[in-house]
């Protein structure tokens, strides 16, 4: 299927890029903090919020910013598993500002959480912050979100004008029902005389039978190519 998406199953390892990007003071702080968290997990509660100030917040690669990557490194240093890990991460998210919450969401695929962090993804998808919604729809959501919720999340992105190439897993998770929802959405827009976002068309084209006899919709699908 010719659907272009962020197809990473796991995000890039944040560690090597970070080590190159941080100056000596920041690197020393992060290494010390990782050791502290490994020895005493509760230390993460005061170290995690301080990361932006200590390490900076520029872009590191296409997936991570510096602060998100450094926070992910702290989370992966937690010597906790299962429910205990989920509780610590959930409380960091609950008490976090938007930058901290983005970092938690982006780090989820690196943590051994099973579906214990789905509540954080769901809470984010109920909100209105497009940067958080985008962070929530990474490899973790692609692997764990049930079909109906994944479809609703994609549709929400369309409404919030979040480009669909930033939603992980669309290539494998787009199904006939999602194509039907997007076709209906496109039809609604056409009837209202409004633009149809280009990036939904490949999903609809992959399931041509959802278009049915709607001539305007067939036309819109053909036009681009």
């Amino acid at each position, binding site marked *: 299927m010719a659907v272009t998406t962020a197809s990473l199953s796991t995000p890039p390892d944040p560690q090597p890029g970070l080590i190159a990007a941080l100056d000596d003071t920041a690197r020393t702080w992060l290494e010390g903090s990782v050791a502290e968290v490994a020895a005493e997990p509760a230390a993460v*509660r*005061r*170290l*995690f*919020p*301080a990361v*932006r*100030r200590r390490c900076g917040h520029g872009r590191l690669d296409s997936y991570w910013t510096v602060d998100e990557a450094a926070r992910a490194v702290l989370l992966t240093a937690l010597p906790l598993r299962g429910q205990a890990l989920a509780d610590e991460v959930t409380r960091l998210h*609950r*008490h976090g*500002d*938007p930058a901290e919450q983005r970092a938690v969401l982006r780090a989820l695929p690196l943590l051994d959480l099973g579906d214990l962090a789905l509540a954080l993804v769901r809470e984010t998808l109920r*909100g*209105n*912050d*497009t940067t*958080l919604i985008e962070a929530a729809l990474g490899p973790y959501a692609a692997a764990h979100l049930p079909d109906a919720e994944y479809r609703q999340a994609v549709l929400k992105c369309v409404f919030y004008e979040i480009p669909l190439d930033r939603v992980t897993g669309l290539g494998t998770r787009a199904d006939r029902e999602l194509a039907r929802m997007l076709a209906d959405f496109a039809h609604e827009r056409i009837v209202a005389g409004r633009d149809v976002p280009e990036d939904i068309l490949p999903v609809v084209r992959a399931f041509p039978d959802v278009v049915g006899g709607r001539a305007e919709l067939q036309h819109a699908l053909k036009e681009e190519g």
Partner: protein
Amino acid sequence: MRIFDPHIHMTSRTTDDYEAMYAAGVRAVVEPAFWLGQPRTSPESFYDYFDGLLGWEPYRAAQFGIQHFCTIALNPKEANDPRCLPVLDELDRYLAKDRVVAVGEIGYDSMTPEEDEALARQLQLAIEHELPALVHTPHRDKAAGTRRTLDVVRESGIAPELVVLDHLNELTVGMVLDSGCWAGFSIYPKTKMSEDRMVEILKEHGTGRVLVNSAADWGRSDPLKTRKTADAMLAAGFDDDAVDEVLWRNPVAFYGQSGRLELEEPKPDEEATFRGNSIRRGGA
């Protein structure tokens, strides 16, 4: 004239106030965590409040060209309610955040053993987080309460230059300045301290280690009292430099000890949102 209000509860104020403050010269504020006029009954209410002081309120202030910082603490009044005490265990998380420039308001309300415990513990948190402390002095029995506060500050081991005692008056200013702590004054429409009395105190004690604030909140108060005090200083013969020292350089020096003051003026942006929500009406 540039003004830094080192103690104002903007959560209780309107967008008209922000506009008037900017027009009067206010470019930065510190909002201390305090009580809301009615008791909170669970720790979660505090966390939502802290999140607001760190999220929605700086966003609002920025839309009017004002930098907003905050101080975080369990306030003295609610330190007496056992339902609220678990907040003390979560303060570490909030004191580590970027826009938190002090621990506060801490101090005494009724001088109970519970308040003793909360004050001592939170002064230790200030030391651990390398933050200044904003200490409220009690409205009732103020002179005795201020003496006792200074004793606890001394016993805590925190450096006196990291501490401001607030809501002072003619009877308490001397002992605070003698201790090496900073002296804070809240200029109110009727109570506490007026701008003319403030000018007399500045004449007598000088302009060093003094912070002047409006402490404006949900009660009868005036967010422009900082500017009015500056005007009263000029009318009484103080020069522009003395006004700038008291209303800008002093608060910058005091809260600057946190290492977390970033004072470039925010550019209001009509399109900006906080978590997708905005102060526009008819929009999101």
